[in-house]
């Protein structure tokens, strides 16, 4: 842009330069301009493409988890096996373990296969084992114990198919690979094809995935996120109950009352630094203070909540201060003018007006805490298999549990494609929660935000 004054330029300046003819230099500059602009567009596009790929692969990989393969099997509940005494004594029935039920289910499935006229070299009911989830026996047993009168009848059950059968129907397990797989054979897949045609093996919406408990490593088809959703919920209760009052109180002090002195500066510096401390360091803090020092129970949502509270506080303080700051001073002056004390002015007038902003900030802070995983690893929320629902409020806070992101991590670690699918599915649920929270925050902001 300073080229006009360059000597060679002025010396060689042609006498008749027209704005209508574009000279080489201008063309070059225009090209550079277009290039620069294209870089910008490319950068934004790259970012958006990454976003699309990310969300796409989540959806593509995760949707399968919401569908599960079930087999409809009529099981003859043989009194000779289940209730030898014939007295329908509940204690005696309870003594029959799941091993007693497994052959009955296999027999049931075998009969179904025969009845459907599927030709198969598998001639024993025991060969059906690979198609049935190990959880089926427990399911049938629970039904029988609940209602012992069923013994002796043939009852229709909807049992889970094994994870390989499920994977076969979801294009996760292929015929070519099955040859090397000791858990299932090609013959089983032939049967599955036949049963699908007969409408006996069906893929249905899998509610257990959302409400159920985690299962052992070998039963991915049974695992669900429900218990860890509860764990996350109790953790968020702790975070909300602690970080909202403490955060708001701290912000009110810093924004409205704090004198300009060393102590105030110290707090300010601390808060801004804490906001930038890596989350894993908060995990170390939680481990050292709450578990090592205070002997709170490991893996408890209470400890997770406390740790996440400390992590969320800076976020909440920063956003609360911003919304307190946006309340114009005239409001305070007017309150003070009619005789309110400083405290009354803040609590009766400034705080209510800043409330929408505070709530928005709190929800966003909670959403952040909900997705945080690293600190939870250190306080033992990973590795704990969350198979039990908490019974009651105290148990919800104090008993070991998992949390949504920790559960997803746990599944990702199990190195089984069926569990990978669960992990992606878990991410969909987690993102739905986060999206809901963020949408609520946006609506709150739109609906109540005041412009002064």
């Amino acid at each position, binding site marked *: 842009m300073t080229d006009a004054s360059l000597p060679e330029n002025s010396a060689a300046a042609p006498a008749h330069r027209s704005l209508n003819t574009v000279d080489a230099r201008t063309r070059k500059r225009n090209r550079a301009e277009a290039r620069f602009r294209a870089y*910008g567009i490319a950068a934004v596009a790259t970012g958006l493409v990454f976003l699309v790929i990310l969300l796409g692969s989540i959806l593509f990989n995760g949707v399968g988890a919401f569908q599960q393969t079930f087999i409809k099997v009529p099981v003859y509940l043989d009194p000779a096996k289940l209730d030898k005494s014939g007295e329908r004594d509940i204690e005696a029935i309870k003594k029959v373990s799941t091993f007693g039920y497994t052959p009955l289910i296999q027999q049931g499935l075998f009969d179904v296969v025969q009845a459907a006229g599927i030709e198969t070299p598998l001639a024993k009911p025991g060969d059906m084992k690979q198609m049935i989830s190990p959880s089926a026996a427990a399911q049938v047993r629970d039904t029988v114990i609940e209602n012992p009168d069923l013994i002796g009848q043939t009852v229709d059950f909807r049992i889970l198919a094994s994870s390989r059968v499920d994977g076969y129907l979801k294009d996760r397990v292929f015929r070519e690979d099955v040859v090397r797989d000791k858990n299932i054979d090609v013959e089983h897949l032939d049967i599955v094809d036949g049963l699908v045609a007969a409408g006996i093996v069906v893929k249905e919406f899998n509610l257990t995935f959302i409400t159920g408990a985690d299962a052992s490593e070998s039963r991915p088809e049974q695992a669900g996120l429900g218990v860890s959703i509860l764990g996350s919920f109790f953790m968020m209760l702790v975070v909300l109950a602690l970080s909202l009052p403490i955060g708001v109180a701290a912000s009110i002090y810093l924004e409205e009352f704090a004198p300009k002195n060393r102590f105030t500066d110290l707090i300010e510096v601390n808060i801004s630094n804490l906001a930038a401390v890596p989350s894993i360091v908060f995990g170390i803090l939680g481990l050292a203070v709450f578990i090592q020092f205070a002997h709170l129970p490991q893996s408890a949502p209470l400890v997770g909540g406390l740790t996440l509270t400390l992590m969320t*506080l800076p976020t909440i303080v920063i956003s609360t201060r911003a919304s307190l700051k946006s309340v114009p001073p005239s409001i305070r002056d007017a309150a003070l003018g009619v005789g309110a004390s400083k405290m009354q002015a803040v609590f009766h007038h400034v705080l209510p007006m800043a409330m929408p902003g505070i709530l928005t900030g709190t929800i966003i802070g909670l959403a952040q805490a909900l997705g945080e995983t690293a600190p939870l690893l250190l306080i033992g929320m990973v590795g704990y298999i969350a198979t039990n629902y908490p019974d009651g409020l105290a148990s919800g806070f104090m008993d070991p549990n998992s949390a949504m992101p920790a559960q997803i991590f746990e599944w990702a670690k199990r190195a089984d494609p069926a569990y990978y699918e669960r992990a992606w599915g878990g991410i969909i649920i987690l993102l739905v929660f986060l999206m809901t929270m963020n949408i609520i925050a946006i609506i709150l902001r739109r609906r109540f935000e005041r412009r002064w």
Partner: protein
Amino acid sequence: MPATWLVLIVLALSAIGYVLGRQRALQNAGGDSRALHSLPSYYGWHVALMALVPATGLLAVWLIAQPLLVENTIAGQLPDSAIPESSTRSLVMSDVRRVADGLDLAVSQGAMTRDDAATLRSEFTQVRERLAEVGVALGSDVNAAVLSAAQDYRSMSRVGNLMMTIAVLAIAALGFVYALSRTDRDFRARNVVEQGIRALLVAAASVAVLTTLGIVLSLIFNTLEFFKLYSAWDFFFGTTWAPSFGGGSELGVLPLLWGTFYISLIALLVAVPIGLFSAVYLSEYAPGKVRSVAKPLLEVLAGIPTIVYGLFALLTVGPLLVQIFGDDGVGIMQASTAVMTAGLVMGIMLIPFVSSLSDDIINAVPQAMRDGSYGLGATKSETVRQVILPAALPGIVGAILLAASRAIGETMIVVLGAGAAARLSMNPFDAMTTVTAKIVSQLTGDADFASAEALVAFALGMTLFVLTLGLNVFALFIVRKYREQYE
């Protein structure tokens, strides 16, 4: 849970206090609230707060202090002979705690009477079996010293709990009575209540300081503990990372730091150009509509939890890279977990971080400078490169440093995407590991906190804390020092 009951009782007391205080003040004023110094509710609040705050404060302190005190006393009383060669005092103490908890459980389930539990002798009873009946599994048989320590533990805890109950209730009642006795028409209840509330506000604000203090102290103490077991020189300058819980570990931090920096570097190489160009485009070129759509969409990337990125790295990006660079392709990548995998994904995560911060900074450059540049005949890109970016440079450098500190502290992506092998390699397609990933792997599982292999995590945490804090402070310093001041 006696503590819960205590809290409820104190809460109830303070609720009664509110009503009584208010009533008493009004009575004193002859039912005419104009004769009072403060609004009637302030008299109520005064009594309520006086009953509630000191008592709950005492309760909190007691709940923290009592286990420590009991623990120390019992640990001090344990004879040296009760500690096996292979064990430590803290391990024996955890046995003691478990036996004590087991006895509590047994009593509460009715499997043992209270006296039984207190007088149980390991010579006569199979404690382990009896506890197993109520569902408490013990690793080894209970010896006499541990059992008697556990019984002492229980009795001390019980005495402590009793004293706590008495003390807390007494303080609550005292506050209640004192506040009520001061209540009359001339008492300045509002001033007192407001002072109290102010003190509570200060206490809340101090939580931030306490948190930092907690972080620093827990890191320092455990790090010092670690350096007692392992030389600091070997930690900071060792080039081998080979922990083995059997002993003889080599715990050099250099390979971890190298992995951390390598991954962060790749992440920044992805995030900075994309983020910066996006920011420039969105703030200088993009029409309003594009900006209002693209900017929030890019920021969605920042709102996605890191576990999602971790899974994305492990299951999508890693296998994709292996297809290109693996044995079927270029042949320099062995497994899907690699520096490149983690770095790329982390870069994606940091894009919105760089772009939003830079966007704010570019927008803060005054319009007059752009207009001046355009007036001299510069094109838009020339203005951006020669006027806006130099003016915004300190802020942008600050933003990049903050992004770097975020990259160094990132955990989930590297735990899932970078691999577990600590090595000093130049190949970005090798699996390496980072400080954060090793903190996780050393502290998860049932490691004994007293071993060097577990304590090293605190030294790593300290290193990480100092690094990120240093970067943040440096970023702040650059922004403050070189920022152009426009009015």
